[in-house]
């Protein structure tokens, strides 16, 4: 363990550790992630399989320490894989899978857990045995390491004649990650009997549904309750939980949204001047479909997302414009 003076240095130290060929982990959130941002892009560009937990919290100003997903979603284009967990159990299971995915495609992974809702609560979780995890996770084999016996240059300049190729390689790795996430989820399920959809997208009561909520993280649990209520009233409603935000599982989302008339996107982050972050992404993915996509901003700065507000979003699903609930 290395102590450093800031998050910017924390990621720099994580890079330094990772290039020596060891498994590297760090954690951050909110303003810390903002300060770390510059170095996050470098970790991804250097193709280092660092795993980082992000306890999602709001961004200043005004100062606010509570939950939303503005911090990690502002890192959308940093080149990190982003996986979101709904529960403490899922967070634990995702961290272990994250290493396997990261070390396959050589991209860093953020495991995002809602601040407070998941980071500061008591929740029962089944912690896997070290022996079983070691069995699941093979020994880390880095592509290159810093070794005085075998000198290499890491993080050099790339001129206009090669920079684009390196960025293209990162994009190809993201595409491979889509497959590796699914593969890893399957392996995890067969070994530990737990899965979260296919690792990219999870659905709940979607069979026969005409409307679905789309969201990420802990809010999905509240939505499950609202879906149950609506189902009891005979309403054909389900839930689509996005687990992998980067890479964005376009094909899976097209497939699960195929028969839906309405989609209600619950966004815990807004892109000022446009709309909710997931909403924009989903609209792009479903551009060739007739599904009506309704954007709803919820839970910014730790505002409680209640079943009431989720049910209200259902009532307003045909109304134009973005709702703030």
């Amino acid at each position, binding site marked *: 363990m290395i102590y450093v003076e800031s998050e910017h240095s924390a990621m720099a130290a994580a890079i330094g550790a990772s290039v020596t060929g060891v498994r590297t982990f760090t954690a951050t959130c909110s303003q810390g992630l903002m300060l770390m941002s510059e170095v996050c892009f470098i970790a991804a560009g250097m193709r280092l399989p660092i795993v980082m937990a992000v306890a999602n919290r709001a961004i200043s100003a005004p100062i606010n320490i509570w939950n939303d997903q503005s911090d990690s979603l502002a890192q959308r284009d940093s080149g990190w894989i982003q996986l979101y967990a709904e529960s403490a159990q899922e967070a634990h299971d995702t961290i272990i899978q994250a290493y396997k995915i990261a070390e396959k495609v050589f991209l860093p992974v953020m495991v995002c857990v809602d601040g407070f809702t998941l980071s500061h609560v008591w929740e029962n979780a089944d912690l896997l045995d070290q022996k079983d995890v070691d069995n699941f996770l093979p020994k880390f084999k880095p592509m*290159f390491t810093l070794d005085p016996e075998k000198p*290499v*240059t*890491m993080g*050099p300049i790339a001129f206009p004649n*090669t920079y684009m190729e390196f960025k*293209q*390689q990162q994009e190809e*790795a993201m595409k491979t990650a889509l497959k590796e996430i699914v593969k890893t989820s399957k392996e995890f399920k067969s070994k530990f009997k737990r899965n979260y959809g296919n690792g990219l997208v999870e659905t709940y009561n979607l069979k026969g549904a005409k409307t679905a909520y789309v969201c990420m993280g802990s809010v999905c649990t509240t939505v499950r309750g609202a879906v149950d209520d609506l189902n009891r009233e005979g309403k054909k409603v389900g839930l689509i939980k996005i687990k992998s935000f980067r890479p964005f599982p376009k094909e899976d989302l097209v497939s699960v949204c195929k028969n839906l008339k309405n989609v209600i996107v619950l966004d815990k982050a807004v892109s000022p001047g446009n709309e909710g972050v997931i909403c924009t992404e989903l609209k792009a993915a479903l551009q060739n479909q007739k599904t009506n996509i309704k954007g709803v901003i919820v839970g910014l700065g730790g505002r409680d997302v209640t079943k009431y507000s989720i049910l209200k979003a259902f009532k307003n699903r045909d109304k134009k414009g973005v709702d703030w609930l």
Partner: protein
Amino acid sequence: MSDLNPGAVITEPGSTKKYKTGDWRTFKPNWDSSKCTQCMICWQFCPDMAIPQKDGKRQDTNFDYCKGCGICSQVCPVKCIKMEKEEK
């Protein structure tokens, strides 16, 4: 693309030597060896390795790597290095 190592890792040591940065130069240091006292302050301050020395004696500027930053001229206590606009 396939011959480029992921993460831009270069496995050949000392490859920066091949990249001659001297053509970035706008101003060129003109060193007057007759006034030079061999104090080696310029050698210490050169941010590249464009001022070579051999047996304690300053050698001619290495113009393959001198970017013309002018630091040597600034630090020279006897003002024997003058920056002159380079015509190309």
